[in-house]
């Protein structure tokens, strides 16, 4: 039941955070093992989904710090993400894919905390209040991290595109 409801969410969170498919699968398994051992600590008055995402977030950030992920490279964007079926012109579709590739690789340059906040807000589309609960941080801190992450990614995008235009 828990696997059916949450595996996709946890796996995608792990994949977006780590950037490597095999590692994300292993991490998802570890998170679920941790979940089963921690279920006794769950407070039934709390939101289960937020509690589980907090557990996953803590695990991913701890592993990131322990194994120095920032030094690892991410999977090639098209390795697992298929090109989206664009209704727009093929040329515009290619431009969009190119932007996604730059952003996907740029995520690796964000610090673990900023990366997690951007993933939760902009990729998974969570509300600021939900993220504050998951991250156990004040709303203002979350907003400032999201702003910082977006700005960093936008600057990477700007730099790469401008360099490409110069060539």
């Amino acid at each position, binding site marked *: 039941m828990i696997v059916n409801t949450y595996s996709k969410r946890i796996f995608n969170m792990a994949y977006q955070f780590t950037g490597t498919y095999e590692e994300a699968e292993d991490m998802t398994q570890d998170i679920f093992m941790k979940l089963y051992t921690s279920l006794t600590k769950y407070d039934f008055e709390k939101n289960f989904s937020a509690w589980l995402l907090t557990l996953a977030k803590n695990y991913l950030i701890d592993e990131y710090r322990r194994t120095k992920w920032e030094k690892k490279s991410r999977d090639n964007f098209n390795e697992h*993400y298929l090109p989206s079926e664009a209704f727009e012109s093929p040329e515009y579709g290619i431009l969009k894919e190119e932007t996604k590739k730059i952003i996907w690789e740029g995520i690796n340059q964000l610090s673990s905390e900023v990366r997690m906040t951007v993933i939760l807000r902009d990729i998974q589309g969570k509300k600021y209040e939900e993220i504050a609960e998951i991250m156990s941080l004040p709303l203002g801190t979350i907003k400032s991290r999201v702003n910082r992450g977006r700005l960093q990614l936008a600057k990477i995008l700007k730099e790469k595109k401008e360099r490409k235009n110069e060539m």
Partner: protein
Amino acid sequence: MKCENIEELLSAYLEDDLSPEEKRTVEKHLKTCQSCNDLLSFIEETNKSLADFPQLEVSENLLDRLYSIPSRKKRLKLSFDFLLRPSLQPIFAAATILMIMISFYLFHPDRNTINKTINRQVHHGYSKIERLYAKAESFTDHLGAYKDKILVSLKNMKLLGGNEDQKVKT
């Protein structure tokens, strides 16, 4: 206001999350700064791109691994239950005492003295056993001699047709 300060407000500006005063400042700056206008459009593009990232399906292999977690944990727990049986408690107690004694012996500073004492005690015990064994042997010899004497006396009894006057050969 400098570009660096404006940059930090651009993301919130796109989400309409600025105070009216901040909003006015940003808009005023954007009218005159091309660089910040460019950055604003890149932030917008970044946001759209991130929101458009697809969610992957979980592979069958991972699902199998996830479904098997509770049963694997249960099996692991059973194997430990076996060790927790009350009938094994005396064995654990004996093993603990043995371990304490071994560690006492191994880590004692005067290990050589202990070795000598043990050797002396073993030799002492061994010689005691030898003496006991020798005593036991002489006792069986005595018993054998008595047995022979009794048999000869029985043979010589008149009642059984023997000659009582015949001397017993020893």
